[in-house]
């Protein structure tokens, strides 16, 4: 962060900086996620570009005070465009010892450590499995600027007027922390005050007042006490003009489906079985029944997938979603979808695998499963959003492809973009392209109906029950071309297998050509897909700042690949494929284009850091 000094009213120094990365952690009960989202919105409202990374424990309520129970929220806000929540922390706020020991490693040397010292006592040390008070460790105080604040006590003092019980009073301390952080980064309290009033005023006016008081107290503590010598200021970023909001991937996906539903004039039938991290999409959509959405919580994933196909057979749009092991269970029904050639969307919000794996962590290791989980030759189109906001657009795209080609489409999201957020320029719905759908009627001439005749996209007619004269039967046995009758004819089978494959492969000519950011040819091409866009993009930017010849191709279409991809790959000396798996896209690229792509892979349940990508590019760049 650049340092431009100035004077604040209180005679305190204000550093103007281009960006801040801060993480707030405490016990899952301490309300850190709320603190994070509030600071995010406030910063966004202040015109900063922001990117967030919430990280909560796997347990519902992990034991208080333990390391497993630590819940954290990381945020980067800046006066320039940013694409990730940041690698290293400029500031770390910790509410207890467990939070400190599990997060201190990410604080940069010289960074600020703000600790609620009331949270550091013998009891907490035991729970956190530390023998001495980590705040007293000399090395800590050498490497970082440590601020010990008695937040609990100060909060209690601040809220006594409102006569809350001790427990309740203490619960307000996250607002105290918030106030202090707001002061530190020159944020206005107003949006959060408003939020507090909206949220608590009705239920309990006292609680509302108390929280506001705590917020104020935190701010005053920074402003008045000697503890903090200086504060920071981050100017507004220059973003594309428009109306913005913060958005997370899962809600964006839900809204994208709503948009597609309206663009195509088809009600959405969303059938699923709960699983982390896909469930939130259900929680969103089930609130939108007035948009004509029908949500079906099925008995299992097989039923969810079957119901989506049943809805599609009836002329509705069936969408089903899951994660991890839940997707494996859909494979058989997806295969039927391939044979029935009905539109449907299968969403996979990827998480750490294999098996139950790491349910709350992110990963990109289901790409090959999406390609090949079905028995027989059963190719399907696959798309993948690149950021939380992009989930909105790729949901529409998946819907468009599904109905245009009469085929199930797989959408691969992941835990990182599903729960992460970014400022999102709200689109004008009128700018979105309509999705045209037509259902055939019986021919006047009364010729027999051919359910497996095909149009220019090789799509078959979507004839729906209720249409006189078009009665027909579909099923999973191989079908005769055009008539759709069962056929064991060898040549017909070959023809149908080829046709189903062509239907998907020929999409390559209709999806947008692959774009390359940075150098259009040269030393290194970084290839990535899905939720890693931000980190990869940032890495390429900074490498180019340093004068390296690097391009970045981020794929949002994974099957088929854009028609121009092969040609792009050949334009670079080195092709690096960065993925949060062991090299799945890399394998597909090597097989298809015979390009000796090298992999940069990470399977740790965590997103890439920009820095490790920068290093990867540098070490793999052709020498001399």
């Amino acid at each position, binding site marked *: 962060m650049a340092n431009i000094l100035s004077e604040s009213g209180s005679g305190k120094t204000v550093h103007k900086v281009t960006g801040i990365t801060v993480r707030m952690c405490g016990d899952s009960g301490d309300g850190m996620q709320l603190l994070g989202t509030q600071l995010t*919105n406030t910063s*966004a*409202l202040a*015109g900063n570009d922001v990117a967030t990374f919430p990280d909560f424990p796997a347990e519902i309520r992990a034991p208080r005070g333990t390391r497993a129970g630590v819940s954290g929220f990381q945020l980067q806000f800046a006066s320039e465009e940013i694409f990730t929540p940041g690698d290293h922390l400029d500031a770390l706020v910790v509410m207890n010892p467990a939070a400190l020991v599990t997060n201190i490693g990410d604080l940069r040397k010289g960074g600020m450590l703000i600790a609620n010292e009331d949270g550091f006592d013998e009891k907490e040390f035991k729970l956190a499995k530390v023998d001495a008070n980590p705040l007293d460790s000399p090395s800590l105080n050498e490497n970082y600027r440590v601020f010990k604040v008695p937040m609990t006590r100060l909060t209690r003092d601040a809220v006594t007027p409102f006569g809350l019980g001790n427990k309740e009073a203490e619960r307000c301390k996250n607002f105290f922390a918030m106030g202090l952080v707001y002061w530190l980064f020159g944020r206005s309290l107003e*949006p959060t005050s408003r939020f507090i009033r909206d949220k608590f005023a009705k239920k309990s006016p006292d609680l509302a007042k108390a929280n506001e008081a705590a917020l104020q107290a935190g701010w005053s503590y920074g402003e008045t006490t000697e503890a903090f010598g200086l504060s920071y200021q981050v100017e507004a970023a220059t973003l594309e*003009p*428009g*109306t*913005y*909001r913060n958005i997370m991937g899962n809600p964006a996906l839900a*809204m994208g489906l*709503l*948009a597609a539903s309206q663009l195509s004039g088809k009600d959405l*039938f969303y059938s699923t079985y709960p699983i982390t991290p896909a469930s939130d999409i259900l929680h969103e959509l089930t609130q*939108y*029944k*007035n*948009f*004509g*959405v*029908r949500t*079906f919580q*099925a*008995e*299992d994933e*097989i*039923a*969810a997938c*079957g*119901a*989506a*196909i*049943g*809805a*599609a*057979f*009836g*002329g*509705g749009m*069936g969408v089903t979603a899951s994660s991890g092991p839940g997707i494996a269970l859909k494979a058989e*029904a997806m295969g*039927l979808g391939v044979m*029935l050639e009905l539109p449907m969307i299968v969403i996979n919000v990827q998480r750490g695998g294999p098996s139950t794996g790491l349910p709350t962590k992110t990963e990109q290791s289901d790409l090959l499963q999406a390609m090949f989980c079905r028995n027989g030759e059963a190719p399907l189109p696959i798309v993948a959003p690149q950021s939380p906001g992009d989930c909105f657009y790729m949901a529409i795209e998946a819907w468009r492809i599904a109905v245009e080609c009469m085929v199930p489409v797989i959408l691969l999201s992941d835990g990182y973009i599903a729960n992460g957020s970014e400022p999102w320029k*709200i*689109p004008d*719905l009128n700018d979105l392209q309509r999705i045209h759908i037509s259902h055939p009627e019986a021919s006047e001439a009364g010729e027999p109906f051919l359910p497996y005749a095909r149009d220019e996209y090789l799509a078959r007619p979507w004839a729906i*029950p*209720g*249409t*006189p*004269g*078009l*009665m*027909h*039967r*579909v*099923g*999973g*046995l191989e079908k005769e071309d055009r008539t759709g009758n*069962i056929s064991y004819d060898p040549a017909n089978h070959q023809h149908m297998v080829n046709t189903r494959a062509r239907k998907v492969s020929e999409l390559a000519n209709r999806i947008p050509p692959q774009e390359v950011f940075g150098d259009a040819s040269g030393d290194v091409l970084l290839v990535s897909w899905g939720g890693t866009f931000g980190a990869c993009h940032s890495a390429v930017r900074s490498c180019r700042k340093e004068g390296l010849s690097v391009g970045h191709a981020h794929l949002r279409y994974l099957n088929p690949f854009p028609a121009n991809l092969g040609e792009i790959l050949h334009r670079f000396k080195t092709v690096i494929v960065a993925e949060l798996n062991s090299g799945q896209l890399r394998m597909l690229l090597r097989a298809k284009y015979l390009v000796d792509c090298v992999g940069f892979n990470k399977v740790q349940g965590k997103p890439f850091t920009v820095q490790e990508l920068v290093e990867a590019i540098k070490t793999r760049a052709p020498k001399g």
Partner: protein
Amino acid sequence: MNLPVLKPADFASTQEVRWCPGCGDYSILAQMKKVLPEFGVPREKIVFISGIGCSSRFPYYVNTYGMHSIHGRAPTFATGLKSTRPDLMVWVITGDGDALSIGGNHFMHVLRRNLDINIVLFNNRIYGLTKGQYSPTSVEGQITKSTPMGAIDHPVNPLSVALGAEATFVARSIDAYVTHLGEMLRRAADHKGTSLVEVYQNCNVFNDGAMAYAQEKTQRPDNVIELEHGKPLIFGKGRDKGIRLVGTKLEVCSLKDTPIDDLLIHDEKDPNPSMQMMLARMRYPEMPEPIGVLRAVSGVSTYDDQINQQVELAKSKWGVGDLQKLIHSGDTWVVS
């Protein structure tokens, strides 16, 4: 509107029927074609959905919309279809393996959700299509390709399972007893909610005569009892035997020495399925096996009604969704 009056032949598809000669499936198909015209529902408004099995070939032979889906999952496709298209008449065709082995869970859940569809379960107590392994309804000790020393599982009673799931309509019939079968299909179609009709079906290739005691005209009267709502339980060639409740147990009695008034009166409308359960458990040879409607309870909400009512309610409560408004919800800011 006045519909063209259809004949059974109008429901024949162009596909040639591919069951073994003598298979009980033929008679079920014939009865279905016979009753379908009576409902006055145009063919394009009817959908047959099946799983996998000999029985599940059924949809190919009926000139309506149809889906031959995957093994055991027919109820799931039906759920998606009926929930979004309540205007359609949906039939599920399934077998004892399809519905009770691999499909047991969907079977149970569709029944308890009371989706307004009709399920016809072809029970031949064997896996036909895969050439003769035992099924969940095969009797203990039955010798099959997969049980050369005899089956060791205790068989599933489809009616007990359905009653355990509190199905609202549960009936049983027999392939060879065509008039009765036709009547059961009619009753099933008339019922609002999930209707289950178990049909004893002879697989003359892999399990021939397994239910001859009920299928053969001569044996039927003594081994089968026809339930009728509000009527006493009487059976036997000379209608000379009855069933009565003694304490908490059912027993066969001769009408010679038992007054009719002592006999159990069948109540298909009893919301409590316990007595119906008792009837369902009557097993040949100890007892005559019940056919007819065991349970027909009306007034229970159906899943398809409810899911659509919530949509309507939401629209009337909050107005038809305004997407532009929705995507602008929460804190927004303008960059200019």
